């Protein structure tokens, strides 16, 4: 099995899906000749030509709108946001057109909108965002956020084959830092299924994206202190695997919700509400959130390092909860 980076896994998924299905095509800024700002689509223009790898003007709303129209004609467009931060320019198109078309007029919109999210690379307030919460209150959309190369590939394939609009958040910090052996055979990671990244009994950390690694590192650290942490990697954010979450809480009885996005209005709220409603009986301690604080993503290293949830902060929260 060849060793493949997270970034390369994404490219493989695009490549294989384009090979498999002539309806799959790509649109985005600088994705063709240049191969994308992060080189995710490198080589695809050469392989599939300019009709299937379309360099567009700087118009996120129109790109998504055109993808919706093409999807209505039976195509499977995959749109790249150069940075996921620019998806805010297509917010209206996604929440009002893409999300409602099936419900209103019985026409599904099988598009994927993907792009690099997340911090840790000194990108500042406009190249580091995590945007999942912007879209969480819009029925009709789906969202995924892979943490591993395996999932990056499998979830992108699932997203492309899905008949509804899927937002696919790839964490730019992981692009070249994560390497894995991937199977030769084709596989899919179904949308809506979480993964137990580590078994544990003292408490559960539920997270996704780059924070999965922070959780795992913390778990290793605290294992030495006798604190046995279970880590759930959600993989899909909308829909998410409620059963996996509730099962883990029922097992450990204590839970930390961890994400890189800022606290107020962050994804953890949805999880907390579900757990506090459906697993209340199982809870032996408060539901704890560990997140970034409520500021824009700062640029300077000391600020960003302090901003991002760290092993240190997470360990502190976990120790306190374990003792509760």
């Amino acid at each position, binding site marked *: 099995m060849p060793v493949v980076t997270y970034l390369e896994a994404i490219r493989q998924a695009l490549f294989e899906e384009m090979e498999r299905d002539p*309806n799959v*095509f790509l649109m985005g800024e600088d994705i063709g000749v240049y191969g994308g700002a992060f080189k995710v689509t490198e080589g695809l223009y050469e392989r599939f030509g300019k*009709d*299937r790898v*379309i360099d*567009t*003007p700087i*118009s996120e*709303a*129109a*790109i*998504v*709108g*055109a*993808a*919706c*129209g*093409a*999807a*209505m*004609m*039976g*195509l499977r*467009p995959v749109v790249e946001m150069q940075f996921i931060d620019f998806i805010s320019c297509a917010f*209206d*198109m996604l929440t*009002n*057109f893409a999300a*409602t078309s*099936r*419900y*209103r*007029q*019985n*026409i*599904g919109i099988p598009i994927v909108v993907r792009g690099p999210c997340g911090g840790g690379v000194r990108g500042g307030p406009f190249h580091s965002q995590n945007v999942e919460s912007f879209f969480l209150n819009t*029925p*009709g959309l*789906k969202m995924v956020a892979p943490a591993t190369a395996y999932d990056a590939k499998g979830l992108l394939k699932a997203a492309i084959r*899905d*008949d*509804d609009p899927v937002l696919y958040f790839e964490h730019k910090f992981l692009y070249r830092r994560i390497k894995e052996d991937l199977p030769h055979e084709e596989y899919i990671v179904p949308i*809506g299924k979480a993964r137990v990244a580590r078994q544990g009994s003292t408490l559960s950390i539920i997270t996704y994206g780059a924070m999965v690694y922070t959780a795992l590192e913390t778990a290793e650290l605290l294992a030495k202190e006798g604190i046995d942490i279970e880590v759930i990697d959600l993989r899909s954010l909308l*829909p998410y695997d*409620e059963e996996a979450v509730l099962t883990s809480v029922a097992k450990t009885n204590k839970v930390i919700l961890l994400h890189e996005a800022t606290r107020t209005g962050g994804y953890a709220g949805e999880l907390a509400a579900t757990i506090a409603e459906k697993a209340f009986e199982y809870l032996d301690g408060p539901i704890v959130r560990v997140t970034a604080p409520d500021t824009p993503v700062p640029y300077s290293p000391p600020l960003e390092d302090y901003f991002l949830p760290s092993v240190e902060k997470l360990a502190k929260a976990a120790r306190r909860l374990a003792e509760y």
Partner: protein
Amino acid sequence: MVELTKQQYIDLYYYMRLTRSLEERLTILFRQNKVIGGLYRSLGQEATAVGTAYALSKGDILSPLIRDLGAMLVRGALPREIFMQYMAREGGGSRGRDLNIHIADLERGFIGPISHLGDMVSVTAGLALGARLKAKNIVTMVYVGDGATSTGAFHEGVNLIAVLNLPTIIVMEHNGYAFSTPTEQQCAVRDLIEKAKAYGIPGYIVDGNDVVACYEVARQAVDRARQGGGPTMIEAKTFRMLGHAQHDDQRYVPKDLLEYWKTKDPIDNYKRVLEQKDILKSDELDQLDRRIAEYLDEELAIAEASPFPDPASLLEGVYKEPIRNASSHLP
């Protein structure tokens, strides 16, 4: 110049008359509280919608604006569907989920717009792009009002159409107002067609109250698009003869403007054309009008008999496969 057959001349009249009569019925239904929500009339603008849409062929697709009922009828939307939509019935194309003429049928060649103005430009571009990738030679048409041309969505969409050289026709309905806002406060050009220059797209102004002129300019654009000649922008100069919606008495519109445009009524004038060209005589026109009235009676009866949607269906169709727990809070 395109040559119209006698039947085509009659068709154009038929659809304009059908549009106006249907809207008149809707107005009555509105007063009876049977129309639910707002009612947007196209009185005085019927020629624009009918003439341009009539230039399309089977397989082509359009995206209408609120005042393009006529275009929908040309593409085969049935009066009963429109009645049911406006009365929020199950049988309306959106099953009571959306309002107005927000319904779609790709077979017949129309899609349902959303309210957010300008957005349909890029969606319609995407239809054309998708068709091209499927090697289908279709043309798409999108309607925007003078007001909608101010939106960023319009700009991005038209620019994309231009760059990709898509077979998409952009019809700008210049009807003097966007709600209460006159075009002078909407943009600093007198002719909307100036905007075509910014995109490098050929642009034409047409008398939006002359149905044959609308057909001809659209037909040429459609033919060119179908032959690979790319997009066209059309500015149809017309006038909104009623308020923005039923509740708006449009007191902000100068009376003399309304007087002037009344003399340009697209149906009255077209009747004269038909008589002059000896296509239909006055009594034949009356007969046609009566047939339309009867037809609408029948359609309305069907619509009125149709049920409201069943609340039990509320959760259906948000996703292809329902998402678990979406309903858990319902009683």
